């Protein structure tokens, strides 16, 4: 029996939030409600890592993030009977997580309040690409066109190496907190813009600005990495 549930759970985790998984998800929720430990273990194994990274982005503190993840699982189990399936289980779990992480930050008040972080980061006006890479505004022929254009990275398999993966991971870790939270939810965990806005209580515009900054900075790191590698 547990094999069936673990399999279901793993399949669900892989495919994220496609609607045709609804029946599988119902079975998983039933399994959790009846206390199937293997279903819970599979859920923890599937979401635990990304949850910790999202919580750490928001908390800016690994130990606090671990506490938040633990708390979240307890809250999820306790709230399971009231879960009505209006969102997917995964979206619900991450919503609980983000809410708890945000209130943990505010409780600890280690830094700027969570709510004003997003605005501050969205308003900080760093360009996506270094301004020196473009011709000046008064260039007679090509104002604001590339002076030093991006060079192709070559075959896309280059991005699959473990070194490149490490570079991307470290680029994500180096991002400012809200950008890190947004890119983790959107690009690494696969949530939609609307889901991400809901969880982080962001306007659509701020979500997009934060995502844009984050992706642009990761691209820059990859560009630098590939340029260095070629030398």
């Amino acid at each position, binding site marked *: 029996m547990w094999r069936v549930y673990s399999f279901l759970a793993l399949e669900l985790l892989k495919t994220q939030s496609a609607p045709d998984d609804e029946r599988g998800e119902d079975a998983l929720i039933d399994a959790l409600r009846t*206390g199937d*430990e293997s279903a*819970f*273990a599979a859920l*923890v*194994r*599937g979401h*635990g*890592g*990304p949850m*910790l*990274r999202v919580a750490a982005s928001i908390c800016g503190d690994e130990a606090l993030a*671990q506490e938040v*993840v*633990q708390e979240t*699982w*307890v809250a999820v*189990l*306790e709230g399971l009977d009231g879960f009505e399936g209006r969102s997917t289980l995964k979206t619900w779990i991450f919503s609980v997580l983000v809410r708890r992480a945000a209130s943990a930050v505010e409780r600890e008040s280690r830094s700027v309040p969570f709510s004003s972080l997003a605005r501050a980061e969205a308003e900080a006006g760093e*360009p*996506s*690409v270094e*301004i020196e890479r*473009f011709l000046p505004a008064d260039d007679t022929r090509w*104002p*604001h*066109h*590339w002076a030093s*254009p*991006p*060079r*192709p*990275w070559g075959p*896309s398999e280059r*991005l*699959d190496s473990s070194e*490149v*993966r490490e570079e*991307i*991971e470290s680029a*994500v870790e180096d991002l400012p907190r809200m950008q890190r939270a947004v*890119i983790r939810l959107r*690009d*690494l965990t*696969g949530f939609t*813009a609307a889901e991400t806005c809901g969880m982080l209580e962001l306007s*659509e515009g701020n979500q*997009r600005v934060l*995502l*844009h900054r984050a*992706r*642009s900075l*990761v*691209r820059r790191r*990859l*560009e630098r990495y590939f340029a260095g590698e070629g030398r």
Partner: protein
Amino acid sequence: MTARAALTCLEMVELVTGYIEGTLADDERRRFDAHLANCPDCPTYLEQMRLTIGALGSLPPESVSPEAERALLLAFGAWNR
């Protein structure tokens, strides 16, 4: 070609996420497409953004530490009782 209508590369790198997300207004999208069709370099930039997004999406998720998993399974047992 009017100065207003043509997008610059500097503008392109700031609009690229809106383009990929499909949130640009129609006329902005048209200016973006027109720029892409004429610029020798911006298609490379767009491609690199897409490669970056793809690579982010295919990072293997971090695994849960055995200690954390054990603690959670204990909590699950307690909840289940």
